[in-house]
């Protein structure tokens, strides 16, 4: 941790880190990546209507909670597990549509050295990156594009690096992302299953990382009796 950091910026970064400390964001991301992996059905083996509906539902749930509803769900889980132990401060802010422009996120400028703007810019880019990762192959009909998973895993790893909670951030997630991309390609599974294998590997990593963080968090932060009594 740099000692020369502006105290306001440091307090802001610590608040961001507080959001990720309990491992719940990783746990949730891992869970929904696994849901996504399982819902990407092997079309050759499962062509029944039941499997299609199950896959579509799984896809919809995974996309919803990966991109839109994750904060809503996290807030509810954290209210039970995290806030009574380590206190409450809101989640890092979502990017504002006004800052993001009509379609494209803002290019970071000198002004955005200010911590809030920088955080919002990074969050916007991270959101766009995740969306590109999942939707571009679908739109391009990526069956023919053999290299898509290892190629897309590189910018995705960069995004994971930029969106990492600071201070004391780990390089592990971006490295695992690249490794998962290469493994999915090297596994020589059918092309339609590459993205499924990649989601499974990355989701598994996040699930393990989140579980470990949550166990450590529970050890470090025993539940503290609330200062005001709940209503009768």
């Amino acid at each position, binding site marked *: 941790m740099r000692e020369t950091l502006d105290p306001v910026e440091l307090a802001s970064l610590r608040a961001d880190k*507080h959001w990720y400390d309990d491992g719940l964001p990783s746990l949730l991301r891992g869970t929904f990546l696994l849901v996504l992996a399982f819902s990407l059905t092997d079309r050759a083996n499962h062509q029944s209507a039941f499997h299609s509906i199950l896959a579509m539902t799984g896809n919809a749930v995974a996309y919803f909670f990966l991109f839109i509803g994750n904060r809503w769900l996290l807030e509810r889980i954290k209210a039970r597990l995290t806030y009574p132990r380590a*206190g409450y*401060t809101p989640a890092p802010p979502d990017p504002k549509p006004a800052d993001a422009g009509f379609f494209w996120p803002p290019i970071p400028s000198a002004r955005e050295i200010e911590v809030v703007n920088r955080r919002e810019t990074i969050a916007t880019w991270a959101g766009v990156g995740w969306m590109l990762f999942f939707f571009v192959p679908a739109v391009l009909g990526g069956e023919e594009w053999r290299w898509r998973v290892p190629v897309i895993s590189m910018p995705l790893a960069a995004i994971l690096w930029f969106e990492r909670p600071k201070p004391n951030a780990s390089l592990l997630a971006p490295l695992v992302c690249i490794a998962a991309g290469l493994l999915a390609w090297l596994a020589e599974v059918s092309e339609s299953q590459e993205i499924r294998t990649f989601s499974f590997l990355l989701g598994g990593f996040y699930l393990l990382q989140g579980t470990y963080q949550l166990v450590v968090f529970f050890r470090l932060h025993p539940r503290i009796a609330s*200062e*005001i009594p709940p209503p009768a």
Partner: protein
Amino acid sequence: MTPALQALSNLDRVIHEPARLMIMTILYAVSEADFLYLQRECGFTQGNLSSHLAKLEEALYVHIEKTFKGKYPLTVCSLTKKGREAFDGYVSKMRVVSTHSGSNGLNS
């Protein structure tokens, strides 16, 4: 009187106390925080934090609200507009002091 000395004489005494400055800095950085979060970040006892928050609330710098997140009761603190302006003013005065002391070779 030099501008730096003038700035020192006009410092906001409510904020200038180190414990309250710490609380104000955290609340300036986050939109809101609960009592437990502030206690952990500042390393204060419950009584100490309560008394400093009471002084900040009395000066109308901090708004304290008792609420619930799910079933968990929270005492949520946030800076008021007046508090934010006071903190900005305090920081700019301290910048004047540090700039002038730097130009006089007092930083070494």
